[in-house]
């Protein structure tokens, strides 16, 4: 089949830390059909021009998770991203290694930090000794139980979410979206006997550090929606253990605060989230804000249509659909 081709202008990140002092970008121009994936382009470069171009790849069908990289600054699988739309949108295709992981060479990153976080959530079944699995038979499950986690094996651990996550950049101790989505999978698994312990521990080790920016969900090539799974974990944690952590206090306070006037009372939010003793520690910050933005310290008036807001809250509270 004859297909029209386009010229893909590729600017590829090159760096061998053992022999080069700084990275460079190398330009390659290739003739390809517009639907050809970026991986095909990179392999063509390796075959025809430069066999030293270094990357990870294997299945070429978005199932092994090897070829995640930055394509025009977005964390994507090279095998699943066609060159045509990238050229149309950006006029060139900039290829760089994933973010949040040190570069080993060219497009290959050190994945150790990513896997360390994965291991931290103890991703394996911890059966409940009081509820042994049936001998010689599958564990029974209700359709509701199955529905909660049947999509979770879609995760191919490609690391695109980890690469895209600003909370990982800000705090390397944040477990990252993949590890938290994996934790969710075990917390809703009816065969697992450690739900409470898992939730308790994640509350104090990173769950509330998520910035809720949803960049992970945007990056995920398999529609795992890690940010939604993190939200589910937070709801499960509050439901099981109450509002005990600064993170959960902040989340609940935010909700209650807005309900009152339909607009955020920032001064009150600080008090609600932090509690009296921690608030004291923020005193100097408070003085600074009062000087620069005095309006933040004023009590807001109820907005027009506050009644609508109240109705919305009632509706949301009565809707059980969103709860995992």
């Amino acid at each position, binding site marked *: 089949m004859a297909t029209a081709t386009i010229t893909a202008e590729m600017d590829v990140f090159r760096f061998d830390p053992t022999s080069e002092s700084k990275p460079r970008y190398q330009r390659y121009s290739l003739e390809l059909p517009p639907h050809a994936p970026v991986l095909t382009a990179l392999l063509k470069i390796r075959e025809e021009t430069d066999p030293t171009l270094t990357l990870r790849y294997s299945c070429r069908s978005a199932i*092994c998770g090897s070829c995640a990289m930055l394509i025009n600054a977005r964390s994507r699988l090279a095998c699943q991203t066609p060159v045509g739309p990238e050229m149309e949108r950006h006029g060139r295709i900039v290829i760089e290694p994933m973010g949040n992981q040190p570069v080993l060479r060219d497009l290959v990153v050190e*994945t150790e930090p990513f896997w360390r976080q994965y291991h931290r959530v103890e*991703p394996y079944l911890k059966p409940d000794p009081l509820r042994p*699995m049936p001998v010689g038979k599958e564990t*029974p499950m209700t*359709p509701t139980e199955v529905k909660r986690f049947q999509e979770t094996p879609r995760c191919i*651990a490609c690391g695109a979410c980890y690469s895209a996550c600003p909370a990982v950049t800000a705090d390397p101790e944040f477990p990252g979206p993949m590890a938290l989505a994996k934790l969710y999978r075990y917390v809703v698994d009816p*065969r697992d006997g450690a739900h409470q312990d898992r939730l308790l521990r994640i509350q104090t080790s990173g769950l509330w550090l998520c910035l809720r920016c949803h960049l992970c969900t945007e990056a995920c090539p398999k529609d795992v929606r890690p940010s939604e799974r993190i939200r589910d974990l937070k709801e499960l944690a509050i439901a099981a253990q109450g509002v005990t952590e600064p993170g959960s206090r902040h989340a609940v306070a935010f909700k209650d605060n807005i309900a009152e006037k339909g607009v955020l009372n920032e001064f009150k939010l600080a008090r609600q989230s932090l509690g009296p003793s921690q608030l004291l520690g923020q005193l100097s910050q408070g003085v600074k804000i009062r000087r620069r933005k005095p309006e933040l310290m004023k009590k807001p008036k109820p907005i027009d249509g506050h009644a609508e807001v109240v109705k919305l809250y009632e509706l949301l509270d009565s809707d059980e659909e969103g709860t995992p």
Partner: protein
Amino acid sequence: MKRHDVVVVGAGLAGQRAALAAAEKGRDVAIVSKLHPLRSHSGAAQGGINAALGKEDSAETHIYDTVKGSDYLGDQDAIEFFCQEAGPTVVEMEHFGTIFSRADDGSLARRPFGGAGFPRTIYAADRTGLALLQALWEHLETQSFTLYEEWDLTNLIVRDGRVQGIVAFDRRRGDFEELAAKSVVIATGPFGRVYARTTNAHSCTGDGVAAAYAVGAYLKDMEFVQFHPTALLESGILITEGARGEGGILKNGQEERFMTRYAPHVQELASRDVVSRAIATEVMEGRGFPGKYVHLELMHLGRELIESRLQEICDFCRSFAGIDPVNEPIPVMPAQHYMMGGVGTNLRGETNIPGLFAAGEAACVSIHGANRLGGNSLLETLVFGKQAGLAAAEFAEYAPAAVLHESDLEAETSTIRAMSNRTEGEDPQRLRSELQALMEGLVGIFRKPAELTQALSQVRALKERFSAVRVVDASKVYNINLTDALETGHLLTLAEVIVVSALARTESRGAHYRVDFPQRDDKNWMRHTLAQRTPSGPTLSYSSVAFTRWEPKERVY
């Protein structure tokens, strides 16, 4: 030098299951893999895993279907054991944490598959391999073992009549290292990359199979190459048999459901060799679509079923072919998919070399004979991975310590290091492409003696050129130009064995179809091919097929 009791090469389902079995026996286990275990090609298996768990079904019918599917070349004692282990194996994987699809009553859901008398394929949507791989890896991580991640096997070391260890290449540091081992399990999967059009991952280059052959292991039934009927036209990406199991139909360019002519009873759900030959025949005789392909239609199944039970392939079609299977037919053609052949083993995974074991697609027990049934390969990795792990653990318990000499590393890697020292020579990627093109053209679904002879001389010419292969990348870090060369060498070795074995077998059985001998010949060919390395090429011998209760019959679907 590092030292372990059991070294497992390959970290897909077979390797992991072997490692689990050996670790549970208390052995010091190491896994060597060129990919992170979760990136193994087992994860690409889509359709499901067979176990006769239905009330109306039985291990007995599973055995019969497998024997018949194998075109009576499968060893019946092995098949009986294999099918009896199916139920417990699937249940064990469920207990390890596999997230299978469930029926409304909460039991494991089952779908019909090709060549099977009952719906007995347990599945996890159309990502069954991935679901199993995650569960097994996560379960295995509760055990103690050493993982050599992104290490390539280069050689096996055999001395004094037994395995003593391996030599491997650490991609990240660029060093070769010896690992001493009392026993070694080869679980490196297939070598589909000898073909241009294959559903296999780029990493499927048969490293362990080639290494085993190099030290004298028998390679069994290498002429039997399975072509999957439905792979995406351009990319060769697999469209699961589950698509036909769920009710998908095949149509030729005249909009005719042609399978009714080839398999009047079960149409699209005949075994894979039958369906692939039917598609190839339609296209060859001019009844394909222009561009030479047929259509797989799912539209009549409805959006809800397609998007839930065939979610991944729905995504594949949309991402990789720009086609929405909810609304339009999928253009497909057969592509190389599975190697029935491999390192010859018995039921315990033992090879002809003491201390060397093999399991999974790298091995040939043989349960698939001349043609594998869909849903039997995932099961094989787990059933025989466990057996090989147990046998390797037992061997290591009684074997004296492995002995490696200081000169081993130097001797074993001198040819490889020479590749990097050449100032001119052959490009490994070019040799690989030429190999893939010639195998695709000359050693495909329909085999002609003249073409096989031509293929053999071309493969040998490429092997000759490979002796001057050059690695231009001089870096120590993650040098995939070097691993290209290693892999190309393995593929050339294995391609030669495939062609020699195919030339010798003058009959048609299962996936091996000789146009000059279109009939099965039980009198002369009811036997396994065994290929062994000599300096001038493979030499062939034959072994008998184990029969228990099933007399050979004509295969009709």
